[in-house]
């Protein structure tokens, strides 16, 4: 049996290594193709099993000591330990080894937590960009088309379990197109849509717990993105405008928000 999607593409898909168009294409086909879904699920499961179960070999303490010696400044290496202090040295050596083991343990745990955290925010970044692209290529840009935030806000509030901040931005050549309900990070979110020149800007917002934070900018597949927390809400903004305009939009959203 020959599959019409090469297994290499499935692997690249679960690794998030396909270009955006192919990624979206496979996502689309998954919805209608049960066999494809099963293959993807199987590959994901294999990946999860390997990642959870395969040994990550911790560095033996002996090697750690040799590397520390390598990293120590030249002067310290040349001096060498005086004979009389050999016993003390050895005892400290043991303590150091034990301390290293503890550190390695803590390090591994922190790294693990960091990895979990990173992969979650990376996945969210992917979701946000994919959602933005879908909204711009499909017919479904807004659910409620209105440039009046007094119309959009109550509509969104009635569809969501929270009341999103809805602001008009006072920027040249920038138009508020309306809002829609989208689905990100496993929950319904508000998407506010602006047009800046010829570019569409999606501003996603949903309740968060984090304290207010500075905007964290990144570029993903050519799209500008920014994320931050403000007023107990998580904000994500994504667009294909250039970096300067994007900065101005993010600042405008933040200041409209804090002016209230």
């Amino acid at each position: 049996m020959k599959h019409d999607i090469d297994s290499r593409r499935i692997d690249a898909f679960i690794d998030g290594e396909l270009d955006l168009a192919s990624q979206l294409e496979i996502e689309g086909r998954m919805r209608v193709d049960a066999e494809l879904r099963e293959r993807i699920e199987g590959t994901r499961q294999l990946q999860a099993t390997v990642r959870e179960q395969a040994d990550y070999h911790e560095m033996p303490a002996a090697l750690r000591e040799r590397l520390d010696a390598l990293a120590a400044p030249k002067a310290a290496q040349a001096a060498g330990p005086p004979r009389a202090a050999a016993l003390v040295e050895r005892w400290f050596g043991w303590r150091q080894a034990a301390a290293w083991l503890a550190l390695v343990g803590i390090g591994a745990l922190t790294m693990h937590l960091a990895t979990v955290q990173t992969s979650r925010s990376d996945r969210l970044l992917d979701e946000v960009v994919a959602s933005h692209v879908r909204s711009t290529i499909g017919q479904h840009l807004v659910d409620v088309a209105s440039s009046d935030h007094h119309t959009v806000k109550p509509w969104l509030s009635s569809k969501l379990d929270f009341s999103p901040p809805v602001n008009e931005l006072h920027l040249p050549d920038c138009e508020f197109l309306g809002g829609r309900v989208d689905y990100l990070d496993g929950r319904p979110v508000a998407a506010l849509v602006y047009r800046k020149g010829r570019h569409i800007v999606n501003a996603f917002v949903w309740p968060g717990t984090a304290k207010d934070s500075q905007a964290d900018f990144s570029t993903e597949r050519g799209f500008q993105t920014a994320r931050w927390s403000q007023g107990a809400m998580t904000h994500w903004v994504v667009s294909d405008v250039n970096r300067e305009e994007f900065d101005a939009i993010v600042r405008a959203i933040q200041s409209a928000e804090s002016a209230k």
Partner: protein
Amino acid sequence: MGDEEDRRRFVQLALPHAGAAYNLARWLTQNEQDAQDVAQDAMVRALRYMGKFHGDNARPWLLQIVRHACFSWLKENRPAERTFLADDDDSLQEMPAPVGDEPQAIALRKAERREINQAIAALPVAYREVLVLRELEDLSYTDIARIVEIPVGTVMSRLSRARGLMRAALMPGTRPLLRTVPRAVNGGNAP
């Protein structure tokens, strides 16, 4: 004078990835003592080459050095292991999807840690290295391509094949596949 600067950068940039260096060496040499020696050798080289490194992410750079050290070691000590693969061979690309009445999920969940480790250890080294770099070091295809010095397309094929072999090895009743070693092709690294 440059020495102390190199040492400082080594401590700051390379040493934090010593754990990854050891893990890779351990999976490629398949034993603890040799892995220590090879990893140390690689770290010594990294310190020596430190002045030539100008990027901000030293991990792929360091792992490339480690991989080189491992392959020199394999060449000396395990010449039979250094099999290189014809990556364009179509027969290697497609692994039959597991079809059977037993759901794959259950079979995989039952696979014990030991079996997973054995299955990885049994992979030909060219597949093993990409799998370890992808799943245990969580590196991107681009980084893996740089470390292994192969095109990204080849990373894709090898990784896909590695997962296919893993899947086959972990399915019940397919134990003999563990021993399957693709035919060796002499010569360099480049396909």
